[in-house]
Every structure is written in structure tokens, then in C-alpha cells.
């Protein structure tokens, strides 16, 4: 690899070993995207976040990574490079930052406060304060103004443009708090990631998967409640039982359609989770890559003329994407729940001023599925 050594900057160790876990400049940078046990206010200092374990019947609490490593029970590979002679961590592919017991038993319950939880709490506190102020102002006068006006615009937008056209009446009103919670939670969590020194909670697949799981549970619950178990199972056949084809064709088509429909039940929330996660992570990766260009070329000209304009542009795009993804998650949840909440008479989702199609064609009703 002698010819390429002139191109690689001196800070990157030359990849002589064919090991994919080799420390790499970009993977060190992208390590910033993950979950950490400390909040890193870079020039000012670090705020260590506690490790809380409930392990083998007793609670353990450590204030910071250093006290964890001195405890004698646990060890972690956050700060050390992998060194097989000194560390109990047996494989270079052990995730950076994972905590292990020295006696190799699995850890029971990990309730540590990580940066995900810290910034989720931050978003929750901000939301609570904003909504409390708006509610207090709402009691005083009928005319909205200021912060209360903004909150009211958003709430009315969710109620009139997202929930009401899509979710049928008794379920629309009952589930409005859920949609409002999802919308504001995702909006604030996405926007938190754009503040300085902050980490986006929704850029971790765990949190987006939890949100999609909530949507999934509510979808199935509303479906079972609104339709009854018989019609609910009929949905799995996607209306094939009503078509006029020969019984052999029906049997063959059912054999194919039922597994596809069952998979469709699970892929829709899965797509919701991955869409939100990937949108949030992709923006940060692009910004990191642009900043990394400066370090890669060791040049300030690149920094001024390429990095700063593009990074500002991508940053503004990320603000737009953050808001849009909150809207998309909410409206797709409303669509999925609305598809279940109609009591089976007409499954099209359409604008109210468009004419109904002559015969409800059940095959196209599932067209919104992935």
C-alpha cells in the first residue's frame, strides 16, 4: 500500500490489517452519533452521566466512567484502545462503550442514564414548560397571542388536517391525545438534536422502534375493537373472498395473499421506525462528512469555501426534515389507524370533495401499505 500512503493523512493508521474494526477517522467521528454515558460540552467540560445497574439482586450506581472502571466489578472499553493482553474484552468487535462484568456474567438490568435519556428528558421538560405557559395564557383570554398562538396553531393543525380526515369519528376524538403526543414528541426530539452539543434522541433505532411499537399496538387494538375479530381476519384476505373467480384460483391467491398481508401488518410500523431513524441520522452524517473533509485535506481553503456553505445548507435542510418527519410519522400513523377504524364499509382514504368510486375495489384499499 505504499503508493496510497501519500494520500492518507498522517492521523489515520494505515490499514495494513484487514480488520474492519480498525479505528478509522470517520468511524471515530461517527462515534459521536451514538449513545454515550456522558454529555460532552467540548471546550467547557464533560458532564458524566450515572450508570445504574440492577444486577444479581442488588443495585449499583456509578457516577462516571472512571468510577465504574475502578469498581472492580465492571469494566468498559470506552477510553481504551483494544489491547488483548490487558483487557478482559475478548474481541475487537465489542461495541465501543459497552460495559462488561469482570467475571463475564451477563448484566441484569441496565437503567443507566445515557445521553439519549438525558436529551429526551430535556425535550420533555421544554415541552412541559411551553404547554403549561400556553394553558395558563389560555385561561386568561379568548384571543390567542404569542406562544399560545403558536401552540394552538400546531394543535389545530394536527386535529383538523391529520386526525379528522383520516380517523373515523369515535376513535378520532379518543386518540387525539396520542397523535398530539407523537407529533410534539417527535418534533421536539428531532429539533433538540440541532442545538449545540446536543444529541438527537430519535437518531437511535431503539427510540423510534418504541414509537412505532406504540402505533402498532394501537392499530391492532383499534382494529379489533372497531371491526370485530371476524372482519379483522377478513382484512387479511384483502377482499379476495368477494371476488368472482373460480375456487381453485381463489385458493391459490389466498395462499399467496395471506402471508403477504400478515407481513404487511408488521412492515408498516417497521418502515415508520426506520424512516424516522434514517432521516435523522443521515443529516448528521452528511454534516460530519463535510466537517471531516477539512481534516482530511488539512486545508483551511476547503473549510471556508466548501464546508461552511454546504454545512449551513444541510443544517437548514435538517430543520425542515425534522419538522417534516414529525408530520409524516403522525399522518402515517393516522392513516394506518384510520384504515382499521372504518367499520369495513368503504376502505378508501380520500378527500371529502372527491367523488366515491363506483364499486369499492378492495384490492386497491391496501395500496397504502408498503
Amino acid at each position, binding site marked *: 500500500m505504499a503508493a496510497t500512503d501519500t494520500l492518507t493523512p498522517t492521523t489515520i493508521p494505515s*490499514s495494513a490489517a*484487514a*480488520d*474492519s*474494526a*480498525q479505528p478509522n477517522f*470517520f*468511524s471515530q467521528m*461517527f462515534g459521536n452519533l451514538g449513545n454515550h454515558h456522558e454529555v460532552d460540552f467540548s471546550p467547557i467540560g464533560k458532564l458524566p452521566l450515572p450508570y445504574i445497574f440492577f444486577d444479581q439482586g442488588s443495585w449499583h450506581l456509578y457516577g462516571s466512567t472512571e468510577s465504574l472502571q475502578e469498581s472492580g466489578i465492571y469494566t468498559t472499553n470506552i477510553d481504551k484502545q483494544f489491547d488483548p493482553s490487558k483487557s478482559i474484552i475478548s474481541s475487537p*468487535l465489542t461495541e465501543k462503550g459497552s460495559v462488561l462484568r469482570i467475571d463475564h456474567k451477563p448484566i441484569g438490568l441496565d437503567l443507566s442514564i445515557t445521553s439519549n435519556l438525558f436529551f429526551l428528558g430535556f425535550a420533555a421538560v421544554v415541552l412541559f414548560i411551553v404547554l403549561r405557559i400556553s394553558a395558563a395564557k389560555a385561561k386568561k383570554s379568548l384571543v390567542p397571542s404569542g406562544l399560545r398562538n403558536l401552540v394552538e396553531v400546531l394543535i389545530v393543525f394536527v386535529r383538523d*388536517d391529520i386526525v379528522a380526515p383520516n380517523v373515523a369519528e369515535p376513535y378520532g376524538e379518543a386518540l387525539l391525545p396520542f397523535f398530539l403526543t407523537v407529533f410534539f414528541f417527535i418534533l421536539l426530539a428531532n429539533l433538540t438534536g440541532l442545538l449545540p452539543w446536543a444529541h438527537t434522541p430519535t437518531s437511535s433505532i431503539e427510540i423510534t422502534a418504541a414509537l412505532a411499537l406504540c402505533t402498532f399496538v394501537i392499530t391492532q387494538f383499534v382494529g379489533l375493537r372497531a371491526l370485530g375479530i371476524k372482519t379483522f381476519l377478513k382484512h387479511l384476505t384483502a377482499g379476495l373472498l368477494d371476488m368472482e373467480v373460480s375456487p381453485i384460483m381463489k385458493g391459490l391467491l389466498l395462499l399467496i395473499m395471506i402471508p403477504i398481508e400478515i407481513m404487511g401488518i408488521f412492515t408498516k410500523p417497521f*418502515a415508520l421506525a*426506520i*424512516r424516522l*431513524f*434514517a*432521516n435523522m*441520522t*443521515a443529516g448528521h*452524517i452528511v454534516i460530519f462528512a463535510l466537517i471531516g473533509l477539512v481534516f482530511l485535506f488539512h486545508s483551511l481553503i476547503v473549510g471556508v469555501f466548501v464546508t461552511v456553505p454546504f454545512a449551513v445548507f444541510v443544517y437548514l435542510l435538517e430543520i425542515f426534515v425534522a419538522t*417534516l*418527519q414529525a*408530520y*409524516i410519522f403522525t*399522518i*402515517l400513523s393516522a*392513516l394506518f389507524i384510520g384504515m382499521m377504524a372504518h367499520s369495513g364499509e368503504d376502505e378508501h382514504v380520500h*378527500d371529502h370533495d*372527491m367523488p366515491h368510486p363506483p364499486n369499492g375495489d378492495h384490492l386497491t384499499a391496501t395500496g397504502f401499505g*408498503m
Partner: protein
Amino acid sequence: MNPSGLAFLGAGIGAGVAVLGAGQGIGKLVASAIESQARQPEMSGGLRTTMIIGAALIEGIALFALVICIILATK
């Protein structure tokens, strides 16, 4: 060719091809949305909503590929 280099190569090519498909799909979508809005300006609001939902769904699929490329590139 060491596997690490092949993984990076795969990640780069994969991300590029995914963006090709998404760009073409969203381009067609927005083209037909604009045409429909020109034909019937009073339907503009509903068309805009449908266009945004369609664009988000198409981008979701492209981001599946992006997630795989990220996993390839960082592990």
C-alpha cells in the same frame, strides 16, 4: 482486496444507486403533482398533502438502503 476495502466500496456504490432510484421516483411524483395542480388549481391543497406523503414513503425506501450502507461502512 481486503474485505474492509470491499465493504467501503459496496457502501459507496450502494448509497449512490439508492439515491438514483429515489430521485427518479420522487421526480415523477412531483411532476405529476405539478401537472395536476395546473389542471385543477382548487385541488392544490389536497394534492400537496398527497405529494408530501408519497415523497416521504419513497424516501423511506431509499433510506433502508442507506442504513445498510452505513452498517457496511462503519462495521
